[in-house]
């Protein structure tokens, strides 16, 4: 198997290539959460478990991860953003086993994941359900509804991952509604809270393994401190790169930077 940095470089390169070919935005959103996906979807999720990408605007990170796992071919990746594709800008429904739900309207993934976790409890199996959210998504009312549902139903088989890059669609987390992804709040409501660096695959894996090693009737949240646009200096921590596509020069610089990281 490739080393973690090799996988990280490889998938970041594919992400950049797909966005450049499509002349599409949401690049920084995918670069922000790809390491969380490597740790959870690629390395820790078992065959029978579900991974839900609630921040559907990072679909490209999901597509390259499923490409790594062999579910989406290199040829199919080339169809991204084109007419007649199965790879729309936000994941579409009923096409891939590991894309169980079409998501992209924010605030839908956590309730769905809570339902899957509840089903696993009723079925008395040992499967976990992973859901990857943006921090902006914690603004949504459904997040708060689902948090309380998960706590009340003792869903310790639910692993919520928050990509806390602190950059929302039209402002910074702190400036929009305040820190709705605050670990104190999640803990107070009844979650087992883990704060991690969001780009350290080994640390994220360790956290997931620790979570899976014990039961305590509390749903779990990994609040991952991430950098939006991680790996491309001019994209990092900016609102612009939530939306912008790259020109040729920017693309070459981005490729160079992600491939020179350790």
């Amino acid at each position, binding site marked *: 198997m490739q080393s973690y940095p090799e996988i990280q470089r490889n998938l970041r390169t594919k992400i950049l290539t797909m966005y450049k070919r499509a002349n599409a935005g949401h690049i920084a959103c995918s670069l922000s959460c790809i390491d969380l996906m490597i740790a959870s979807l690629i390395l820790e999720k078992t065959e029978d478990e579900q991974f839900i990408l609630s921040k559907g605007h990072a679909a490209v990170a999901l597509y390259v991860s499923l490409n790594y796992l062999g579910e989406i071919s290199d040829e199919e990746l080339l169809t991204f953003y084109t007419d007649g594709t199965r790879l729309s800008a936000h994941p579409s429904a009923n096409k891939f086993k590991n894309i169980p739900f*079409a998501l992209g309207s924010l605030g*839908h993934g956590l309730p769905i994941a809570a*339902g*899957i976790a509840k089903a696993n409890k009723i079925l008395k199996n040992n499967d976990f359900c992973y859901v990857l959210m943006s921090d902006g998504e914690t603004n949504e009312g459904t997040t708060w509804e689902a948090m309380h549902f998960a706590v009340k139903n003792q869903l310790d088989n639910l692993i919520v991952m928050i990509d806390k890059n602190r950059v929302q669609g039209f402002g910074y987390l702190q400036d929009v509604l305040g820190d709705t992804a605050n670990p104190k709040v999640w803990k107070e409501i009844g979650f087992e809270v883990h704060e991690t660096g969001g780009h350290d695959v080994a640390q994220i894996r360790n956290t997931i393994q620790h979570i899976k090693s014990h039961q305590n009737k509390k749903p779990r949240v990994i609040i991952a401190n991430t950098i939006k646009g991680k790996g491309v200096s001019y994209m990092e921590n900016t609102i612009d790169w939530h939306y912008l596509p790259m020109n040729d020069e920017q693309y070459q610089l981005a490729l160079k930077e992600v491939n020179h990281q350790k």
Partner: protein
Amino acid sequence: MRNLFSKKIQEVVLQDEKIIFVTGDLGYNALENLRNSIPDRFINAGVAEQNMIGMAAGLAYKGFKVFCYSIAPFITYRCLEQIRLDVCIHKLPVFIVGNGGGYGYGIMGATHHAIEDLACLSSLPNIDCWIPNIDDDVPFVIDEILKNKKPAYLRLGKNVKNPFGTPPEIISQLKKSPQPRVTIISQGAVTQNVIEATENSSDIDIFTVSKLPLLEIPINLKQSILQSKKLLIVEEHVFRGGLSENVSLKLLENNIQLDKFKALYALGYPNELYGSQSYHQKISGLDKENILKVLTEL
């Protein structure tokens, strides 16, 4: 119809352990027995309808058939996007049950009425909207919903006894005349008013439609309309997206010509005053007296 629904659900959940029942914190004096008989499969999701529907989609993805219950407006408008995205486009067996469709909650006011619910939900992909018209329709419709295993909306109304003894069907002919002067198509609780208004008439055909969107006009309904050439539609729902609009489209598509067409439908709150279900029916001209008047004029 809530108690008929509860009775039937009680039967089916004991026969099928893949059925889960979720309520949005409602069901007092109706769902207690159900809660006691399947404690592991009865979920009170709280006053949180959007999460209830998304969560139900997660349960359905894992192989369960999920009934979600609340008052009709709360479980339709409030969570329309969850119904569209989480349930409908994934074709999941989540069955949305709204009690008190139309003006069913009467004096409770506009917050508790659902007179645009069928327009909202029947326009979504892969979903059937079920409207039991008479009491016997309730168990029939629940069996259909479970058999189809696809997204469904069940709009429960007030009890209506069927004096004609006809078996429940999706499009049912309650009353048949040898030479119909007028054909009536009715939907929902106003069927009671239609039955009463036509008690002494022997030249009226009455049909009810318990499923939208309307996919076709069945042969017996077509024959009745071709004979009478006069059609009256009565529904406790706004015109747009309801039974009247559905029937109108099918008449045009099938080139069925009429001499006279009249639709009686919910007008909303034209005087901005509130009252019982009967009061709102009267304001919209859905009451027995107005139906009689319209029949005379046709």
